Structures are given as C-alpha cells and as structure tokens.
C-alpha cells in the first residue's frame, strides 16, 4: 500500500475529471492533452477531432456520465454547464481586454532636496503580488520599499530612492515573463519641472 500520485489540472487545479464543471473545459482539455495524453484519452476518448467545438460539453457529458439521473435532468445539466462555460469565456475575454487596455504608471516624485521616491501603480490588474514585489525591490536596491494607498485609494508600491530606470527595466521583464509584452508602461518624471526652478535660484 502506498500513496497515490494525483494529477491536478494546470488550468483549474481540479482533478481532471472535474474540469467539465469549471467552465474552463476547453483550456483544461488542451492542457491535459499536452501534459498527460494517456489521461486525456482515458477521459475524453481517443479521438475527438470530430467533436464540434460547441458540442464539447455534451460530448464529454455523454462519455463521462452514463448517468442515472434521467435524460431530462442530464440535458438541463449540460445546458447549465454550457452556459457556465460561455459565461466563463466571456469573463476571461473581458479580463484580457482589461489587462491590455490598462497600463502601469511609474512615477518619480521629489521629496526633499535631492531625495526622490518612485511610486508604481496599476499593477493590481496583472495579478502581481505587490507585497512580494515591494520586498524584492527593497532587497534589490537596498532601500525602503512598501505598499501604500495613494490618493485615488489604489494600492501602489513606493520605493525610497532614485531608481526610476532600474524599476522600469525590471517591470518590463516582469511583464514579459507573464506574456504581457504589449502592456504600456508609462513613466512620469516630476524632476524636469522642478529643475528649472532650482536653477533660477
């Protein structure tokens, strides 16, 4: 007797046989096919090239559930699942659109004399853990770094010190890792306005 190794779906984190209930079935299937082909054939049958895109759920339902709950209820369940799936897909599309349309703002502000802080906002959309990021920045630049709320009541990462360029480069690489290369990163530098005033003095 020993422990069983369990495969969990990389998309929805459920055991693969429950993927049909998450509304992400299409992506789950692709993942499973790539990563665990033998499990895929076991669950969805060897060849589903003929399965219509829209009929995915029904086909799976038939294969998986030689069910006992009666045809009427089974049909209703399938309908509900299909609805759920379209809902989920729409939501994902919306989220993606939101991600693409939003941008990251890196702002440098003068504090006193030659001291600056750099504030990064707009990260929350990209599922980046702000607290963790603050910690990495703190150790990377050896400065103080924290997460705080700005005037618009949104969370931002505030770094003590003049590290605008480094931060920009780091954020770019971070977004690239997430496959979001097209996201706009805007830098605002308030130093330029300040400089003339100091010079005239």
């Amino acid at each position, binding site marked *: 007797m*020993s*422990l*069983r190794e369990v495969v969990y779906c990389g998309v929805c984190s459920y055991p693969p*046989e*429950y993927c049909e*209930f998450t509304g992400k079935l299409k992506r789950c299937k692709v993942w499973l096919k790539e990563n665990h082909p033998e499990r895929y054939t076991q669950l969805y049958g060897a060849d589903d090239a003929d399965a219509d895109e829209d009929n995915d759920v029904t086909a799976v339902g038939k294969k998986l559930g030689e069910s006992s*709950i009666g045809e009427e209820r089974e049909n209703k369940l399938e309908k509900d699942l299909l609805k759920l799936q379209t809902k989920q897909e729409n939501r994902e599309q919306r989220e993606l659109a939101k991600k693409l349309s939003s941008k990251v703002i890196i702002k440098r502000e003068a504090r006193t004399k030659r001291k600056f802080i750099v504030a990064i906002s707009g990260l929350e959309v990209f599922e980046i853990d702000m607290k963790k990021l603050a910690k990495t920045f703190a150790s990377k630049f050896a400065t103080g770094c924290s997460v705080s709320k700005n005037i618009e009541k949104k969370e931002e990462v505030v770094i003590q010190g003049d590290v605008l360029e480094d931060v920009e480069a780091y954020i770019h690489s971070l977004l690239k890792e997430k496959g979001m290369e097209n996201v706009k990163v805007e830098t605002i530098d308030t130093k330029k306005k300040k400089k003339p005033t100091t010079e005239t003095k």
Partner: protein
Amino acid sequence: MFKKFTRDDIHSRSNVKSSIQRTLKTKLVNQYPKLEPVIDELIPKKSQVEVIKCEDKIQLYAVNGEVLFFQQFDELIPSLRLVHKFPEAYPIVQVDRGAIKFVLSGANIMCPGLTSPGAGLPDAPGFEKDSVVIIKAENKDSALAIGRLLMSTEDIKSINKGHGVELIHHLGDPLWNFTIE
C-alpha cells in the same frame, strides 16, 4: 467552514514539537485506522509539521508546505489533497451527477442527491450522525468534498428529505486554493 477564508484569517504559524507530532500521528491513526500503513509516508519521522492557527479556532497542519489536515475542535479532518492521495481510509458517500455542480459551489447535500440511483450510501448499519465523510461523485474517481453527516445514513435513506450532509471543504474553496509560501 472555509467559505470565507483568506490570508488575513491566519493568526500564527509555528512548528510543532516532535513529541506533539507523535501524538498527532497516533491520533490520526486512531481516527482513521486504515491510514496506519501509510502514516510514515505521509508524515515522515524526520519531517517538520507546521501548525497554522486561524480564525474561529481552526488549525491547519501542514507538512512540506502542503496542508494535510485540519481541526476545529477535537476531530482531525483530512484535506482533499490528502484524501486524493489515499482515499481508501475514509468513510465514503456518493452523490449523483446532478449534484456535483452544487457541491462544487459549496452547497450542503440534500438527501435525494444521496439516495438516487446514481448515488451511493453504505449498507446498514452505515455511518453515525456527525461523522465526517468523504463525498465522491458518480462516475468519478476522486473525492470532491468533505462533509459532516447531519443525520445517520440510515435516516437519510428512510427520511429522504432535507439536508443530509453539511459541507466542510470542497474542491475550489479557499482552503483548496490556499498555499503556504
């Protein structure tokens, strides 16, 4: 129990003393005798068990960063990941296909979902009221939830109305998604 559970609900994290770890292991085996052959594999002797104390006196026990079981009062309840690893050791009830959807969103299980043709309850004498059961579904291998019986299985069969199982932990709830970093 874990309907609303976030990181903010964690009060403290600490390592468990090895002596307490031993008693914990015996307690687990006492509760689920069939776990005995694999208990050393689950919690190796050298491993460090971590206890995470949360809101409402819930305690999570983790080994190697994975929550294996939890308790609220005296009883130890396995987490679903542990159940998946070794499903044979626990009392099991089965629900029909129509119920899966609702169970996955955290609903309590109604008696008809446990008595219909696709479902399965153990033969008499069955399980007592208040015992912790694993819930699996028709045509599926893995468990999808863990619950507590609100009436004994015999009562469920005879009354066949109302809430049968109170859900404690199900696939996709915050505890399932919980990770320790």
